[in-house]
């Protein structure tokens, strides 16, 4: 688990205050801490990459702060979809060859309209 300090040190232009804003907006969800816990919230490598992405969207690409939650929500939906699609593909791949071929052909036919 990474600490707030680790994240801030590894993402350029990120400050503790800014990171906390991301967390309060729900853009980053560090490992939860219960009220009785003393340890600070822990971040994963994915959280780190996500923090870098948010900074990137705002600083390098010049997206407005208000736009970023919308973008992230769309990105998260895409990854949700890709994950479902991957699961679907895995299921199809495990089917007998004849069924797989049929599925492929149907999809291709559909695409051609």
């Amino acid at each position, binding site marked *: 688990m990474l600490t707030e300090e680790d994240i801030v040190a590894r993402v350029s232009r990120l400050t503790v205050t800014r990171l906390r804003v991301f967390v309060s907006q729900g853009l980053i*969800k560090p490992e939860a801490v219960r009220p009785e816990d003393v340890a600070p919230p822990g971040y*994963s*490598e*994915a*959280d780190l*990459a*996500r923090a*870098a*992405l948010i900074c*990137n*969207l705002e600083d*390098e*690409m*010049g*997206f407005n702060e208000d736009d970023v939650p919308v*973008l992230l*929500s769309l*990105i*998260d*939906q*895409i*990854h*949700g979809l*890709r*994950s*479902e*699609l*991957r*699961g*679907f*593909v*895995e299921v199809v*791949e495990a089917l007998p*060859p004849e069924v797989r*071929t049929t599925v*492929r052909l149907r999809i*291709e036919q559909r*695409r*051609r*309209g």
Partner: protein
Amino acid sequence: MAEDLYSVLGVAKTASADEITKAYRKLAKKLHPDLNPGDTAAEEKFKEISSAYSILNDEDKRGQYDRGEIDASGQERPEARYYREYAGGPEGTRYRSSAGYEDMGDFSDLFGDMFSGGAGMHGAGMHGRGQRGGARFSMPGQDAQYHLDIGFLDAVNGTKTRITLPDGSTLDVTIPPGVTGGQVLRLKGKGHPGLGKGPPGDALVEVGVKPHPVFTREGNDIVVDLPISLDEAVLGGKVEVPTIAGKVAMTVRPGASSGQTLRLKGRGVKGKGDQLVKLNVTMPETIDDDLKRFIEEWKQTHAYDPRRTMKEQA
């Protein structure tokens, strides 16, 4: 990387800092890997524009570049790790949105729920076949059909091969492991060219599998007849067995008989099936006097009837 940095960003050499930033942002929004998950071409392009921007955005470095003091590759950033690399994995689970599959008919209750997401996407091309419609007089090209005979082991283990077509052109074909005779491989866009803006047709390659002198296939299992010697059958021991992935050592128990089948787990096709090894006790080419004498003596006191059950049944 030898390309001119200004043309990478599509700006003039005289562009102002503001114009450069604008041009970069426009391209970055289009090409950023996290905005294009699963697209490696976009990632390559993005790397180019980022490294161009990292030089041109810095007044000192831009001056150095203009004066030829540093080249276009002067500034390599450390490899960035994009969110998309985590998004599909376990760490991304909590962010992946499972909202909104109510429009998926009978499957709507399955999605957003069932699949938890495994490792990498199978099969590369999720890009589809390009736009539908297009210009009015466009027509997709015809599919082209071919037949290709491949060796047994290539079919079982998969391989890459280059085939030469009747017209002299060549085609690189990836044979997926476990392919069976009669299966058709579809190579997107490798068929006859389309009309107008129509996409080319596909090449359909029907695979034929040549038999192997040692291996035969039953579903995902591989079957091998293995001759063993008289002493191996009586005393047992380790014998070398060919498998589709090379030789392995197998233990034969003392007292093995012909027809007995041993199973090598996971040694079948794509690791899914097993290899079945049928033992075949084989006598020495000549029965010498020693053996004859020994068996004659042995039989006096140890005679047995292997057909006893058979006689009871028929």
